[in-house]
Protein backbone atom coordinates (compact mmCIF):
# COMPACT_ATOMS: atom_id res chain seq x y z
CA UNK A 1 0.00 0.00 0.00
CA UNK A 2 1.14 3.52 -0.76
CA UNK A 3 0.51 6.85 0.85
CA UNK A 4 -2.73 7.11 -1.10
CA UNK A 5 -4.00 3.94 0.54
CA UNK A 6 -3.89 2.30 -2.87
CA UNK A 7 -2.06 -0.70 -4.24
CA UNK A 8 1.03 0.52 -6.12
CA UNK A 9 -0.33 -0.21 -9.61
CA UNK A 10 -3.54 1.77 -8.94
CA UNK A 11 -1.59 4.59 -7.28
CA UNK A 12 0.50 4.82 -10.45
CA UNK A 13 -2.64 5.37 -12.50
CA UNK A 14 -3.89 8.07 -10.13
CA UNK A 15 -0.53 9.82 -10.20
CA UNK A 16 -0.43 9.59 -13.97
CA UNK A 17 -3.71 11.53 -14.11
CA UNK A 18 -3.06 14.09 -11.41
CA UNK A 19 0.37 14.99 -12.80
CA UNK A 20 -1.30 16.31 -15.97
CA UNK A 21 -3.20 19.50 -16.76
CA UNK A 22 -6.99 19.12 -16.95
CA UNK A 23 -7.25 18.95 -20.76
CA UNK A 24 -4.44 16.39 -20.83
CA UNK A 25 -6.26 14.27 -18.24
CA UNK A 26 -9.13 14.00 -20.68
CA UNK A 27 -6.70 12.84 -23.37
CA UNK A 28 -5.28 10.27 -20.98
CA UNK A 29 -8.79 8.98 -20.26
CA UNK A 30 -9.21 8.64 -24.02
CA UNK A 31 -6.01 6.61 -24.17
CA UNK A 32 -7.36 4.31 -21.47
CA UNK A 33 -10.54 4.01 -23.48
CA UNK A 34 -8.56 2.92 -26.53
CA UNK A 35 -6.41 0.57 -24.50
CA UNK A 36 -9.26 -1.34 -22.85
CA UNK A 37 -8.38 -5.02 -23.39
CA UNK A 38 -10.82 -7.02 -25.52
CA UNK A 39 -12.95 -9.66 -23.84
CA UNK A 40 -11.47 -13.14 -23.51
CA UNK A 41 -13.13 -15.61 -25.86
CA UNK A 42 -15.06 -17.44 -23.16
CA UNK A 43 -16.80 -14.16 -22.26
CA UNK A 44 -17.17 -12.79 -25.76
CA UNK A 45 -19.28 -15.87 -26.50
CA UNK A 46 -21.20 -15.60 -23.23
CA UNK A 47 -22.18 -11.99 -22.67
CA UNK A 48 -25.01 -13.24 -20.48
CA UNK A 49 -22.40 -14.07 -17.84
CA UNK A 50 -21.58 -10.39 -17.46
CA UNK A 51 -23.16 -7.95 -15.03
CA UNK A 52 -24.69 -4.72 -16.37
CA UNK A 53 -23.84 -1.40 -14.69
CA UNK A 54 -27.03 0.65 -14.95
CA UNK A 55 -25.47 3.59 -13.10
CA UNK A 56 -23.36 4.38 -16.16
CA UNK A 57 -24.65 6.58 -18.97
CA UNK A 58 -23.63 4.04 -21.56
CA UNK A 59 -24.25 0.30 -21.70
CA UNK A 60 -21.34 -1.34 -19.92
CA UNK A 61 -20.96 -4.89 -18.64
CA UNK A 62 -18.37 -6.37 -16.33
CA UNK A 63 -17.23 -9.78 -15.18
CA UNK A 64 -14.92 -10.77 -12.34
CA UNK A 65 -12.79 -13.91 -12.01
CA UNK A 66 -11.03 -14.99 -8.85
CA UNK A 67 -8.40 -17.65 -9.50
CA UNK A 68 -6.48 -18.69 -6.41
CA UNK A 69 -6.12 -15.36 -4.67
CA UNK A 70 -5.82 -13.26 -7.85
CA UNK A 71 -8.52 -11.08 -9.33
CA UNK A 72 -9.19 -10.53 -13.04
CA UNK A 73 -11.78 -8.01 -14.24
CA UNK A 74 -13.25 -7.87 -17.76
CA UNK A 75 -15.30 -5.09 -19.33
CA UNK A 76 -17.47 -4.67 -22.36
CA UNK A 77 -18.36 -1.10 -23.38
CA UNK A 78 -19.11 0.34 -26.83
CA UNK A 79 -16.58 2.36 -28.81
CA UNK A 80 -19.07 5.22 -29.13
CA UNK A 81 -19.02 5.63 -25.35
CA UNK A 82 -15.38 6.56 -24.81
CA UNK A 83 -15.87 8.02 -21.34
CA UNK A 84 -17.36 4.81 -19.99
CA UNK A 85 -14.71 2.78 -21.80
CA UNK A 86 -12.08 5.03 -20.27
CA UNK A 87 -13.44 4.36 -16.77
CA UNK A 88 -13.29 0.64 -17.52
CA UNK A 89 -9.73 0.98 -18.81
CA UNK A 90 -8.62 2.73 -15.63
CA UNK A 91 -10.18 0.06 -13.43
CA UNK A 92 -8.73 -2.69 -15.58
CA UNK A 93 -5.22 -1.24 -15.26
CA UNK A 94 -5.64 -0.49 -11.56
CA UNK A 95 -7.20 -3.75 -10.42
CA UNK A 96 -6.16 -6.63 -12.66
CA UNK A 97 -3.81 -9.08 -10.97
CA UNK A 98 -4.32 -7.75 -7.45
CA UNK A 99 -5.13 -10.08 -4.57
CA UNK A 100 -8.64 -10.34 -3.17
CA UNK A 101 -7.63 -8.40 -0.05
CA UNK A 102 -6.01 -5.66 -2.12
CA UNK A 103 -9.09 -5.17 -4.31
CA UNK A 104 -11.39 -5.08 -1.30
CA UNK A 105 -9.13 -2.48 0.35
CA UNK A 106 -9.28 -0.07 -2.60
CA UNK A 107 -11.10 3.03 -1.32
CA UNK A 108 -14.58 3.42 -2.81
CA UNK A 109 -13.90 7.04 -3.72
CA UNK A 110 -10.80 6.43 -5.83
CA UNK A 111 -12.59 7.51 -9.06
CA UNK A 112 -12.96 10.94 -7.48
CA UNK A 113 -9.19 11.18 -6.91
CA UNK A 114 -8.27 11.20 -10.60
CA UNK A 115 -8.67 14.95 -10.89
CA UNK A 116 -11.48 14.57 -13.42
CA UNK A 117 -14.24 16.38 -11.51
CA UNK A 118 -14.08 19.49 -13.61
CA UNK A 119 -13.22 17.93 -16.95
CA UNK A 120 -15.70 15.06 -16.73
CA UNK A 121 -18.13 16.12 -13.93
CA UNK A 122 -18.92 14.39 -10.63
CA UNK A 123 -22.25 13.07 -11.95
CA UNK A 124 -20.52 11.11 -14.69
CA UNK A 125 -17.83 9.88 -12.29
CA UNK A 126 -20.59 8.28 -10.25
CA UNK A 127 -20.75 5.65 -12.98
CA UNK A 128 -17.16 4.68 -12.24
CA UNK A 129 -17.83 4.60 -8.50
CA UNK A 130 -20.68 2.19 -9.22
CA UNK A 131 -18.46 -0.01 -11.41
CA UNK A 132 -15.92 -0.29 -8.60
CA UNK A 133 -18.62 -1.10 -6.04
CA UNK A 134 -20.00 -3.87 -8.26
CA UNK A 135 -16.53 -5.31 -8.83
CA UNK A 136 -15.83 -5.37 -5.10
CA UNK A 137 -19.17 -7.04 -4.42
CA UNK A 138 -18.43 -9.73 -7.02
CA UNK A 139 -14.93 -10.26 -5.61
CA UNK A 140 -16.43 -10.69 -2.16
CA UNK A 141 -19.00 -13.22 -3.42
CA UNK A 142 -16.51 -15.18 -5.50
CA UNK A 143 -13.83 -15.35 -2.85
CA UNK A 144 -16.29 -16.64 -0.26
CA UNK A 145 -17.80 -19.36 -2.43
CA UNK A 146 -16.13 -21.63 -4.95
CA UNK A 147 -13.69 -19.73 -7.12
CA UNK A 148 -14.11 -19.94 -10.85
CA UNK A 149 -15.61 -18.19 -13.83
CA UNK A 150 -18.88 -16.40 -13.19
CA UNK A 151 -21.83 -18.53 -14.16
Amino acid at each position, binding site marked *: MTLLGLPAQFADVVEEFTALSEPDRLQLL*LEYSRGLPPLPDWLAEHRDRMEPVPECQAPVFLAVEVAGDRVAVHFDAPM*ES*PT*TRGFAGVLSEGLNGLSVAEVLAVPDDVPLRLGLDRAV*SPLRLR*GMVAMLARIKRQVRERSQGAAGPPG
Partner: protein
Amino acid sequence: MSVADDDDPKFAEYAHPERLVSTAWLADNLGKPGLVVVESDEDVLLYETGHIPGAVKVDWHTDLNDQVARDYVDGADFAALMRSKGIARDDTVVIYGDKNNWWAAYALWVFTLFGHADVRLLDGGRMAWIAEGRPITTETEQRPATDYPVVQRDDAPIRAFKDQVLGHLGRPLVDVRSPQEYTGERTHMPDYPEEGALRGGHIPGALSVPWARAAAEDGRFKTRAELDAIYREEKGLSPDDDIIAYCRIGERSSHTWFVLTHLLGFTAVRNYDGSWTEWGNAVRVPIAKGDQPG
Protein backbone atom coordinates in the same frame (compact mmCIF):
# COMPACT_ATOMS: atom_id res chain seq x y z
CA MET B 1 -21.84 38.01 -39.26
CA SER B 2 -24.26 35.25 -40.17
CA VAL B 3 -24.36 32.75 -42.99
CA ALA B 4 -27.16 32.17 -45.55
CA ASP B 5 -29.89 29.65 -44.68
CA ASP B 6 -30.09 26.14 -46.05
CA ASP B 7 -32.75 26.04 -48.78
CA ASP B 8 -33.20 22.25 -48.54
CA PRO B 9 -36.83 21.60 -49.63
CA LYS B 10 -37.46 19.30 -46.66
CA PHE B 11 -36.79 22.21 -44.31
CA ALA B 12 -39.06 24.59 -46.24
CA GLU B 13 -42.03 22.67 -44.84
CA TYR B 14 -41.10 23.55 -41.27
CA ALA B 15 -42.27 26.71 -39.55
CA HIS B 16 -38.69 27.98 -39.14
CA PRO B 17 -36.52 26.39 -41.83
CA GLU B 18 -33.64 28.64 -40.84
CA ARG B 19 -33.18 26.60 -37.65
CA LEU B 20 -31.86 23.52 -39.47
CA VAL B 21 -28.98 22.78 -41.79
CA SER B 22 -28.26 19.59 -43.71
CA THR B 23 -24.98 17.71 -43.73
CA ALA B 24 -24.48 18.77 -47.37
CA TRP B 25 -25.01 22.45 -46.51
CA LEU B 26 -22.56 22.19 -43.62
CA ALA B 27 -19.93 20.49 -45.78
CA ASP B 28 -20.27 23.33 -48.31
CA ASN B 29 -20.10 26.07 -45.71
CA LEU B 30 -17.37 24.79 -43.35
CA GLY B 31 -14.76 27.44 -42.77
CA LYS B 32 -16.96 30.36 -43.86
CA PRO B 33 -16.48 33.51 -41.81
CA GLY B 34 -19.37 33.97 -39.42
CA LEU B 35 -20.04 30.24 -39.00
CA VAL B 36 -19.07 28.34 -35.86
CA VAL B 37 -19.79 24.63 -35.52
CA VAL B 38 -20.34 23.31 -32.00
CA GLU B 39 -20.40 19.66 -30.94
CA SER B 40 -22.42 18.86 -27.83
CA ASP B 41 -22.66 15.24 -26.73
CA GLU B 42 -23.79 13.09 -23.89
CA ASP B 43 -20.34 11.53 -23.78
CA VAL B 44 -17.75 14.12 -22.79
CA LEU B 45 -14.95 12.35 -24.70
CA LEU B 46 -16.70 11.72 -27.99
CA TYR B 47 -15.48 15.03 -29.46
CA GLU B 48 -11.89 13.97 -28.73
CA THR B 49 -12.34 10.73 -30.68
CA GLY B 50 -13.03 12.76 -33.83
CA HIS B 51 -15.28 15.68 -34.78
CA ILE B 52 -16.27 17.81 -37.76
CA PRO B 53 -13.22 19.81 -38.83
CA GLY B 54 -13.21 23.19 -37.13
CA ALA B 55 -15.92 22.30 -34.60
CA VAL B 56 -15.51 23.40 -30.99
CA LYS B 57 -16.87 21.43 -28.04
CA VAL B 58 -19.44 22.62 -25.52
CA ASP B 59 -20.26 20.18 -22.74
CA TRP B 60 -23.61 20.41 -20.96
CA HIS B 61 -22.25 19.32 -17.55
CA THR B 62 -19.02 21.23 -17.38
CA ASP B 63 -19.76 24.29 -19.54
CA LEU B 64 -23.49 25.04 -19.40
CA ASN B 65 -24.47 24.06 -15.85
CA ASP B 66 -23.56 26.17 -12.86
CA GLN B 67 -21.11 24.12 -10.85
CA VAL B 68 -22.70 24.94 -7.46
CA ALA B 69 -26.39 25.74 -7.72
CA ARG B 70 -28.74 23.61 -9.81
CA ASP B 71 -29.04 26.21 -12.53
CA TYR B 72 -27.45 27.29 -15.78
CA VAL B 73 -24.39 29.49 -15.96
CA ASP B 74 -25.00 33.23 -15.64
CA GLY B 75 -24.39 35.92 -18.24
CA ALA B 76 -20.77 36.47 -17.25
CA ASP B 77 -19.92 32.77 -17.38
CA PHE B 78 -21.72 32.31 -20.69
CA ALA B 79 -19.86 35.27 -22.18
CA ALA B 80 -16.57 33.83 -20.92
CA LEU B 81 -17.43 30.48 -22.51
CA MET B 82 -18.35 32.07 -25.84
CA ARG B 83 -15.20 34.20 -25.84
CA SER B 84 -12.99 31.20 -25.13
CA LYS B 85 -14.68 29.16 -27.88
CA GLY B 86 -14.29 31.98 -30.38
CA ILE B 87 -18.02 32.59 -30.86
CA ALA B 88 -19.19 36.14 -31.57
CA ARG B 89 -22.66 37.43 -30.72
CA ASP B 90 -23.67 37.71 -34.38
CA ASP B 91 -22.14 34.41 -35.53
CA THR B 92 -24.22 31.63 -37.01
CA VAL B 93 -23.84 28.71 -34.61
CA VAL B 94 -24.59 25.20 -35.89
CA ILE B 95 -24.81 22.61 -33.13
CA TYR B 96 -24.67 18.86 -33.60
CA GLY B 97 -24.20 15.88 -31.33
CA ASP B 98 -24.80 12.24 -30.52
CA LYS B 99 -28.09 10.48 -29.73
CA ASN B 100 -30.31 12.17 -32.33
CA ASN B 101 -29.04 15.61 -31.32
CA TRP B 102 -30.47 15.18 -27.86
CA TRP B 103 -27.68 17.16 -26.13
CA ALA B 104 -27.27 19.45 -29.12
CA ALA B 105 -30.89 20.54 -28.72
CA TYR B 106 -30.24 21.10 -25.03
CA ALA B 107 -27.26 23.32 -25.84
CA LEU B 108 -29.34 25.19 -28.42
CA TRP B 109 -32.02 25.82 -25.80
CA VAL B 110 -29.41 27.21 -23.38
CA PHE B 111 -27.98 29.45 -26.14
CA THR B 112 -31.55 30.69 -26.58
CA LEU B 113 -31.82 31.56 -22.88
CA PHE B 114 -29.05 34.06 -23.60
CA GLY B 115 -30.76 35.33 -26.73
CA HIS B 116 -28.11 34.15 -29.18
CA ALA B 117 -30.03 34.97 -32.35
CA ASP B 118 -28.74 32.61 -35.01
CA VAL B 119 -28.37 29.12 -33.61
CA ARG B 120 -29.24 26.05 -35.68
CA LEU B 121 -29.11 22.26 -35.48
CA LEU B 122 -27.43 19.93 -37.95
CA ASP B 123 -30.26 17.62 -39.06
CA GLY B 124 -29.23 14.05 -38.20
CA GLY B 125 -26.40 15.16 -35.95
CA ARG B 126 -23.13 13.37 -35.51
CA MET B 127 -24.49 10.04 -36.66
CA ALA B 128 -25.60 11.34 -40.08
CA TRP B 129 -22.30 13.10 -40.71
CA ILE B 130 -20.27 10.00 -39.90
CA ALA B 131 -22.65 7.62 -41.71
CA GLU B 132 -22.10 9.61 -44.90
CA GLY B 133 -18.34 9.17 -44.57
CA ARG B 134 -17.75 12.92 -44.25
CA PRO B 135 -14.41 14.07 -42.84
CA ILE B 136 -13.67 14.09 -39.13
CA THR B 137 -10.55 15.13 -37.29
CA THR B 138 -9.02 14.83 -33.83
CA GLU B 139 -7.38 18.25 -34.17
CA THR B 140 -8.73 20.44 -31.38
CA GLU B 141 -9.92 23.74 -32.78
CA GLN B 142 -8.63 26.86 -31.06
CA ARG B 143 -10.50 29.79 -32.53
CA PRO B 144 -9.38 33.35 -31.78
CA ALA B 145 -11.10 34.75 -28.68
CA THR B 146 -14.04 37.10 -29.21
CA ASP B 147 -15.55 39.97 -27.23
CA TYR B 148 -18.91 38.26 -26.68
CA PRO B 149 -20.98 40.61 -24.50
CA VAL B 150 -22.33 39.77 -21.06
CA VAL B 151 -26.06 39.25 -21.65
CA GLN B 152 -28.56 38.63 -18.87
CA ARG B 153 -30.17 35.22 -19.18
CA ASP B 154 -33.86 35.60 -19.97
CA ASP B 155 -35.60 32.52 -18.57
CA ALA B 156 -39.21 33.66 -18.73
CA PRO B 157 -40.14 32.94 -22.38
CA ILE B 158 -38.83 29.37 -22.67
CA ARG B 159 -38.13 28.06 -19.17
CA ALA B 160 -40.66 26.99 -16.52
CA PHE B 161 -40.12 26.49 -12.80
CA LYS B 162 -41.97 24.19 -10.41
CA ASP B 163 -44.35 26.82 -9.02
CA GLN B 164 -45.26 27.83 -12.55
CA VAL B 165 -46.00 24.21 -13.39
CA LEU B 166 -48.27 23.98 -10.32
CA GLY B 167 -50.12 27.05 -11.59
CA HIS B 168 -50.29 25.52 -15.07
CA LEU B 169 -52.12 22.31 -14.09
CA GLY B 170 -55.14 21.88 -16.35
CA ARG B 171 -53.31 23.34 -19.34
CA PRO B 172 -51.18 21.31 -21.78
CA LEU B 173 -48.14 19.48 -20.45
CA VAL B 174 -46.02 17.11 -22.50
CA ASP B 175 -44.10 14.34 -20.78
CA VAL B 176 -41.35 13.21 -23.17
CA ARG B 177 -39.91 10.38 -21.05
CA SER B 178 -40.20 6.68 -21.81
CA PRO B 179 -43.61 5.01 -21.29
CA GLN B 180 -42.27 3.18 -18.22
CA GLU B 181 -41.25 6.43 -16.59
CA TYR B 182 -44.61 8.01 -17.46
CA THR B 183 -46.68 5.27 -15.87
CA GLY B 184 -44.54 5.27 -12.75
CA GLU B 185 -43.21 1.77 -13.30
CA ARG B 186 -39.73 3.24 -13.06
CA THR B 187 -38.13 6.58 -12.20
CA HIS B 188 -35.33 6.61 -14.75
CA MET B 189 -34.79 5.64 -18.37
CA PRO B 190 -34.25 2.03 -19.28
CA ASP B 191 -30.47 1.43 -19.29
CA TYR B 192 -29.75 4.81 -17.72
CA PRO B 193 -28.60 5.82 -14.27
CA GLU B 194 -31.01 6.12 -11.41
CA GLU B 195 -30.85 9.80 -10.66
CA GLY B 196 -32.81 9.64 -7.49
CA ALA B 197 -36.50 10.42 -7.77
CA LEU B 198 -38.44 9.23 -4.74
CA ARG B 199 -41.78 8.91 -6.52
CA GLY B 200 -42.73 7.58 -9.93
CA GLY B 201 -45.48 8.72 -12.28
CA HIS B 202 -46.22 11.93 -14.16
CA ILE B 203 -47.55 15.43 -13.64
CA PRO B 204 -51.37 15.19 -13.73
CA GLY B 205 -52.76 15.96 -17.16
CA ALA B 206 -49.47 15.47 -18.99
CA LEU B 207 -49.63 13.84 -22.41
CA SER B 208 -47.08 11.13 -23.08
CA VAL B 209 -45.02 11.76 -26.22
CA PRO B 210 -41.56 10.16 -25.91
CA TRP B 211 -39.07 12.62 -27.40
CA ALA B 212 -37.54 10.20 -29.89
CA ARG B 213 -40.84 9.92 -31.76
CA ALA B 214 -39.78 13.15 -33.48
CA ALA B 215 -36.71 11.46 -34.97
CA ALA B 216 -36.68 9.22 -38.03
CA GLU B 217 -34.66 6.01 -38.29
CA ASP B 218 -31.63 7.85 -39.63
CA GLY B 219 -31.62 10.28 -36.71
CA ARG B 220 -32.95 13.19 -38.77
CA PHE B 221 -36.15 14.96 -37.83
CA LYS B 222 -39.36 13.52 -39.21
CA THR B 223 -41.09 15.56 -41.90
CA ARG B 224 -43.49 18.36 -41.09
CA ALA B 225 -46.45 16.16 -42.01
CA GLU B 226 -45.27 13.33 -39.77
CA LEU B 227 -44.69 15.69 -36.85
CA ASP B 228 -48.07 17.37 -37.30
CA ALA B 229 -49.67 13.92 -37.25
CA ILE B 230 -48.13 13.19 -33.84
CA TYR B 231 -48.38 16.45 -31.94
CA ARG B 232 -51.42 18.10 -33.54
CA GLU B 233 -53.65 15.29 -34.76
CA GLU B 234 -52.88 12.48 -32.32
CA LYS B 235 -52.29 14.64 -29.22
CA GLY B 236 -54.56 17.55 -30.12
CA LEU B 237 -52.05 20.31 -29.41
CA SER B 238 -52.47 23.69 -31.13
CA PRO B 239 -49.75 26.14 -32.16
CA ASP B 240 -51.07 28.84 -29.81
CA ASP B 241 -51.40 26.54 -26.77
CA ASP B 242 -49.43 27.45 -23.67
CA ILE B 243 -47.35 24.26 -23.29
CA ILE B 244 -44.80 23.04 -20.78
CA ALA B 245 -42.58 20.08 -21.68
CA TYR B 246 -40.55 18.08 -19.19
CA CYS B 247 -38.54 14.91 -18.81
CA ARG B 248 -36.05 13.90 -16.12
CA ILE B 249 -33.61 16.81 -16.01
CA GLY B 250 -34.81 18.89 -18.96
CA GLU B 251 -32.54 17.56 -21.70
CA ARG B 252 -34.90 15.32 -23.66
CA SER B 253 -37.64 17.93 -23.32
CA SER B 254 -35.43 20.58 -24.90
CA HIS B 255 -35.42 18.36 -28.00
CA THR B 256 -39.24 18.41 -27.97
CA TRP B 257 -39.17 22.15 -27.25
CA PHE B 258 -37.12 22.55 -30.46
CA VAL B 259 -39.58 20.46 -32.47
CA LEU B 260 -42.66 22.29 -31.24
CA THR B 261 -41.15 25.78 -31.40
CA HIS B 262 -38.98 25.76 -34.47
CA LEU B 263 -40.32 22.95 -36.63
CA LEU B 264 -44.04 23.29 -35.93
CA GLY B 265 -44.14 26.99 -35.06
CA PHE B 266 -45.78 26.74 -31.64
CA THR B 267 -45.45 30.13 -29.97
CA ALA B 268 -45.59 29.48 -26.22
CA VAL B 269 -43.61 26.38 -25.32
CA ARG B 270 -41.53 26.29 -22.17
CA ASN B 271 -39.13 23.63 -20.93
CA TYR B 272 -39.42 22.65 -17.25
CA ASP B 273 -35.80 21.71 -16.59
CA GLY B 274 -36.41 20.80 -12.94
CA SER B 275 -38.45 17.99 -14.49
CA TRP B 276 -38.99 14.67 -12.78
CA THR B 277 -35.88 14.82 -10.59
CA GLU B 278 -37.52 17.85 -8.94
CA TRP B 279 -41.22 16.96 -9.19
CA GLY B 280 -40.71 13.34 -8.13
CA ASN B 281 -38.94 14.50 -4.99
CA ALA B 282 -41.07 17.53 -4.10
CA VAL B 283 -43.36 17.34 -1.06
CA ARG B 284 -47.12 17.33 -1.63
CA VAL B 285 -47.17 17.93 -5.37
CA PRO B 286 -49.84 15.94 -7.21
CA ILE B 287 -48.75 12.87 -9.17
CA ALA B 288 -50.69 10.66 -11.58
CA LYS B 289 -49.82 6.99 -12.08
CA GLY B 290 -50.61 4.73 -14.99
CA ASP B 291 -50.96 5.28 -18.70
CA GLN B 292 -53.73 7.91 -18.62
CA PRO B 293 -52.99 11.64 -18.22
CA GLY B 294 -55.11 11.67 -15.04
